[in-house]
């Protein structure tokens, strides 16, 4: 047996034993690369995800809602920070990760390529998008890579608050005037299917799933997670008194799960490939922020260097 294979066996044995892998531990190159891809994709989703919600901050309908939304979007930036830091432990810099995002090499969650067209969309995003994200992320708190798992614990706490906040926005709208309820229904109509797509392609078409399950990056498959989300969300919609836009959605006593209709996978792949309603605008907004901020970052570095030189002079004088 080659030394590489022995290491891999020992590595797999640690994972099977539920031990966490830490940054300085040996790991297969593919495990490292998979994590960089997944963690950075997650980080990018957090910061691109700031844009559709940020779109409503200046128009939030009350001071209380404005403060809630601002704090939420700020939390997303914080999540981006932890996640970039977790990715950096795998030997890649934040600048490189940004470059991958800006050049389109790295992906982010497609849900953020849909526009937020009304205030109810802010509720729907909190309820559905954060709800779907939590299902994925709770699983990830037990993922095998230590820094990622620990970042997830903190992120999950905040996300679950966001989800409740979103649901509460929806509830307020649904108990409000007919106009408000119609606004909530319209948001559900537009965000329901894209939320289901957040779990990724069907298991049969998900090339990464098997290895990810073996390495305990994932503990459940895309289809299992999607089903879990639907089972939790369908009764919530019923409580709100709005209708999920799927005529095939119904409780299946025998399976103990909701049956649901066919996802439009053509739309899913179109959005993944960059042809969604807002792909270009979202990416451009990130690129603009980065490019317009270049002189600021350079100034901070130059000023820091000057101050360092001055303090060395003072110390050696």
């Amino acid at each position: 047996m080659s030394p590489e294979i022995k290491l891999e066996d020992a590595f797999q044995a640690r994972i099977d034993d539920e031990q966490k892998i830490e940054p300085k531990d040996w790991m297969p190159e593919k495990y490292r690369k998979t994590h960089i891809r997944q963690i950075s994709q997650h980080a990018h989703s957090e910061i691109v995800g700031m844009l559709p919600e940020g779109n409503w901050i200046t128009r939030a309908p009350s001071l209380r809602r404005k403060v809630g939304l601002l704090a939420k979007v700020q939390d997303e930036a914080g999540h981006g920070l932890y996640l970039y830091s977790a990715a950096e432990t795998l030997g890649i810099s934040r600048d490189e990760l940004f470059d991958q995002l800006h050049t389109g090499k790295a992906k982010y969650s497609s849900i953020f390529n849909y526009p937020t067209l009304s205030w109810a969309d802010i509720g729907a995003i909190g309820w559905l998008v954060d709800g779907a994200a939590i299902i994925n992320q709770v699983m990830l708190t037990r993922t095998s890579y230590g820094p990622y798992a620990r970042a997830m614990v903190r992120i999950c706490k905040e996300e679950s608050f966001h989800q409740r906040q979103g649901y509460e926005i929806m509830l307020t709208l649904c108990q409000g005037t007919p106009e408000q309820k119609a606004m909530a229904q319209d948001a559900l109509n537009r965000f329901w299917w894209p939320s289901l797509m957040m779990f990724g392609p069907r298991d049969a078409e998900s090339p990464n799933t098997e290895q990810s399950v073996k390495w305990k990056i994932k503990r459940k498959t895309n289809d299992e997670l999607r089903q879990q989300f639907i089972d939790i969300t369908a009764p919530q919609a019923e409580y709100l008194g709005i209708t999920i836009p799927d005529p095939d959605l119904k409780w299946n006593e025998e399976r103990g799960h909701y049956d649901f209709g066919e996802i439009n996978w053509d739309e899913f792949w179109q959005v993944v490939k960059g042809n969604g309603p807002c792909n270009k605008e979202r990416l451009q907004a990130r690129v603009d922020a980065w490019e317009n901020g270049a002189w600021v970052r350079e100034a901070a570095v130059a000023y820091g260097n000057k101050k360092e030189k001055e303090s060395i002079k003072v110390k050696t004088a």
Partner: protein
Amino acid sequence: MSNQKLYQYLLLLGDNSLILGHRLSELCGHGPSLETDIALTNMSLDLYGQVRSYFQYAAKIKGDNSTEDSVAFLRTEREYHNSILVEQENKDFAHVIVRQFFFDVYHNLLLDKLKSSKDEIIAAIAHKSIKESDYHLRFSSQWVRRLGGGTVISHEKTQAAVTHLYPFIHELVSPIPIEKEMQELGIGINPDDLRDEYFNQVQEVLNEVNLEYAELKERFARGKTGIHTEQLGYILGELQYMQRAYPNMQW
């Protein structure tokens, strides 16, 4: 003293935070780095927190089913009393920082004095808010130094922002009648009393990184009396959109 006057004074205090908070909130998600993005959003959140305290109090005084939201969202353009400085647009990061710095110096001096207001609620708000404004001032003054003393480009951009915004700062420390009246009652502050200290603090930081400012070249600025630049209308267009489009609803 009439409640109407106290109400007017609370608007004067709250509107600066409301409009500057709005300007900062426009930047959320678009900052030059994640860290600055988070910091600017934080300042916006602090300012909105102050707005809510002032306007909850104002609504109580006004009566007639007023709420913090009716005070914040349902006035006409001429009824907003923020200074012209804080409504100036986010042209670039230098403008954001210089605007913030000019306001923070004033705000910090003002809150320090308002801590001794005879009005207990105003004093309590000042006690809470000064911890925030103190942090804001440290953040913005440090960034003025970084940008002013960083690179040739950053110095040029910061100089442009100072040249544009400096003339507006006189309004902050030029009293209007309500401020004088409130000072006489021991409730408010005549900002003329802050003038010397204000210019000392501002100029000290600008001098440190060789940023030039025109001596006392005052611009026409009457925001405190409700005469604004054309920019405020657009801010209100967004700020008030939901309340105007869907009146009398709960959110």
